[in-house]
């Protein structure tokens, strides 16, 4: 009978259950949007969302004065929150009797010389590395590493350090060192004989959480030592170009080039272009001239040029700048003291065998913070280097002054980039999947293939959420703590490429999986009414949502696929996946 009715009368309205599901998802989406920082985030500042540390209070004074309790730290601020550098302020941390904080705060807030007073709060983090000198690495915190680590630590991504080599110091896990090459000595011994490359490598992936020394940005990433600079710290364009090609051909997805020169080299320029075509992000130091003019290879098209900032986020005095600068990252500014440098383990001064923890500064030190952040993002299944760069730029925090030549898009914030790649994008995938599913259901009802009373079950929605990688929404809350959740921080469409080989990416980033699963699902008379059928139907719509998001955001790069064709491939695949889901709904039309 239904078949004889008009489409208009059959155009079933959404059922109450579906509307409730949509409302619940919208609510969760809004909440997560807040958590995920979907909008551009301001520069990271000490938040007030964590727990107060018992007995600790921070006070900002207009002039030095006596305070209740014991002073445990104090410093004069050159420029305060309001940019009034003419009236320095005094930031003092005091320790009072635990339990009296509220009383002391009230008393302090009533004083005329107290600009503000607040309890010292601790960020809620699930994982705090136990490396004893991590607290001195202001630069990792400023780059957003801590908050990014709850979602990913760079597993599965190889970062090539094209430099003076890497010495296997004891705070570098030897298991994380990939096979490299020495282009200076023409052999496979790519050990460092200078200290520069090892320091850079430490910033990228120093062993973290090992109870020793210091931490690195992407501690689970693999490091590939490519020695192109001699013990004097210099090298040729030929060796560097060869090093770039070798690294990419041997699986490096991020290249760190903390080196440069003033001469333009076509060999190096074409090597950078080759690396980009092969899906690698090429992160380069802007240079240390302290003036306008970015050095090569940072100035090449295809490079991601990094300028350096000090602890206050201002451009370091030595940093080069210019229109090619893409982003700014902590490179240290030792004019503010030794500990305003970047601290990593490397070779001791003058030694080629002994290790030491040393404070370096330079745009070479800023670059590996960005390379590490790129590795974090790529480990979340973002394989298109342009998408990685765009993500890092669009989530960069606001620089202290508006000057694109000095800061590019702003200050690196790895945590914001990771949040967007997980919960931010997860929301979009889920939204696309739900809209696609509801549209298909509505249409199937309108043409009489699904009864108005026939509702998709919980397994349908579970399949849809799974296909859309909805669990990525929870990743910033601590995916790294739970191995399975870490796996699920990526949509399943990204798994083959991320966990198998780049070519296996064609398996995930297409409609093949839902199509293959749909064949057995079609054996049942009414797939939507069976557990497996419902799951697969939902999965097909979830997969379609993931593919559509990847097409629109251009997050994916597949081997041998021209980048111009990639969005069309993904778009077509999304349509196929949706058709698979729609086809399962259409099984045995009602008469």
């Amino acid at each position: 009978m239904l078949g004889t009715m008009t489409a208009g009368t059959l155009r079933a309205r959404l059922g109450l259950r579906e509307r409730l599901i949509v409302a619940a998802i919208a609510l969760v989406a809004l909440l997560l949007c807040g958590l995920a920082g979907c909008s551009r985030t301001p520069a990271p500042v000490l938040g007030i969302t964590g727990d107060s540390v018992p007995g600790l209070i921070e006070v900002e004074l207009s002039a030095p004065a006596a305070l209740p309790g014991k002073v445990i730290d104090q410093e004069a601020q050159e420029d305060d929150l309001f940019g009034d550098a003419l009236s320095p302020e005094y930031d003092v941390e005091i320790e009072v009797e635990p339990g009296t904080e509220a009383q002391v705060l009230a008393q302090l807030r009533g004083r005329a010389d107290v600009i503000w007073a607040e309890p010292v709060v601790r960020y809620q983090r699930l994982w705090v590395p136990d490396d004893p000198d991590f607290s001195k690495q202001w630069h990792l915190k400023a780059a957003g590493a801590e908050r990014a680590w709850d979602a990913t630590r760079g597993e599965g991504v190889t970062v090539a350090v094209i430099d003076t080599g890497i010495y296997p110091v004891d705070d570098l896990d030897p298991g994380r060192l990939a096979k490299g090459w020495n282009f200076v000595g023409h052999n496979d011994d790519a050990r460092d004989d200078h200290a520069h490359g090892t320091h850079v490598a430490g910033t990228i992936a120093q062993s973290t959480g090992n109870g020793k020394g210091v931490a690195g940005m992407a501690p689970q990433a693999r490091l590939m030592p490519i020695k192109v600079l001699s013990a004097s710290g210099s090298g040729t364009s030929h060796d560097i170009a060869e090093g770039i090609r070798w690294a990419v051909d041997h699986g490096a997805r991020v290249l760190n080039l903390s080196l440069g020169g003033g001469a333009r080299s076509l060999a190096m320029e074409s090597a950078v272009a080759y690396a980009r075509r092969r899906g690698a992000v090429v992160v380069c130091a802007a240079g240390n001239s302290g003036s306008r003019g970015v050095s090569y290879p940072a100035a090449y098209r295809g490079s991601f040029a990094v300028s350096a900032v000090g602890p206050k986020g201002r451009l370091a005095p030595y940093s080069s700048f210019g229109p090619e600068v893409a982003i700014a990252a902590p490179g240290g500014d030792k004019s503010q003291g030794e500990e305003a440098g970047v601290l990593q383990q490397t070779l001791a001064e003058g030694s080629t065998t002994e290790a030491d923890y040393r404070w370096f500064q330079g745009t070479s030190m800023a670059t590996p913070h960005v390379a590490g952040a790129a590795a974090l993002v790529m480990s979340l299944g973002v394989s298109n280097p342009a998408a990685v760069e765009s993500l890092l730029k669009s989530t960069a925090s606001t620089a202290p002054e508006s000057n694109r030549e000095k800061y590019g898009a702003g200050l690196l914030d790895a945590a914001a980039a990771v949040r967007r790649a997980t919960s931010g994008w997860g929301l979009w995938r889920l939204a696309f999947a739900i809209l696609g599913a509801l549209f298909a259901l509505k249409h199937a009802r309108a043409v009489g293939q699904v009864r108005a009373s026939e509702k998709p079950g919980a397994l349908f929605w579970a399949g849809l959420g799974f296909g859309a990688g909805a669990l990525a929404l929870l990743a910033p809350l601590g995916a790294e703590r739970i191995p399975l959740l870490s796996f699920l921080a990526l949509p399943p469409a990204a798994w083959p490429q991320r966990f198998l080989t780049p070519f296996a990416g064609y398996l995930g980033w297409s409609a093949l999986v839902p199509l293959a699963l749909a064949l057995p699902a079609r054996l049942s008379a009414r797939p939507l009414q069976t557990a497996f059928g419902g799951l697969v139907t939902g999965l097909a719509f979830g997969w379609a949502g993931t593919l559509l998001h990847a097409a629109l955001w251009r997050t994916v790069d597949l081997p041998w696929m021209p980048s111009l064709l990639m969005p069309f491939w993904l778009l077509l695949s999304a349509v196929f996946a949706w058709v698979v889901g729609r086809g399962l709904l259409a099984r045995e039309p009602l008469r």
Partner: protein
Amino acid sequence: MKLSGTVEFVDLEGGLYHLSADDGKRYTLIGSRGELKAAKGARVEVEGSLDEGFGIGMSGPQLRVASIRKI
């Protein structure tokens, strides 16, 4: 080429040595670190060649040192 000037230690990239030359330019010196360290702060005469290559300094022309002599 032969240049004279003063060797300066620059705390960049783990430590660089610059020649603040009498021709008014600054060169990043490429050579034995021990030899350069010994010449730190001294007026020197450097014999070497301009290196168009690449390096960790990224702060101006590089001068590859063949010999360095305090004057």
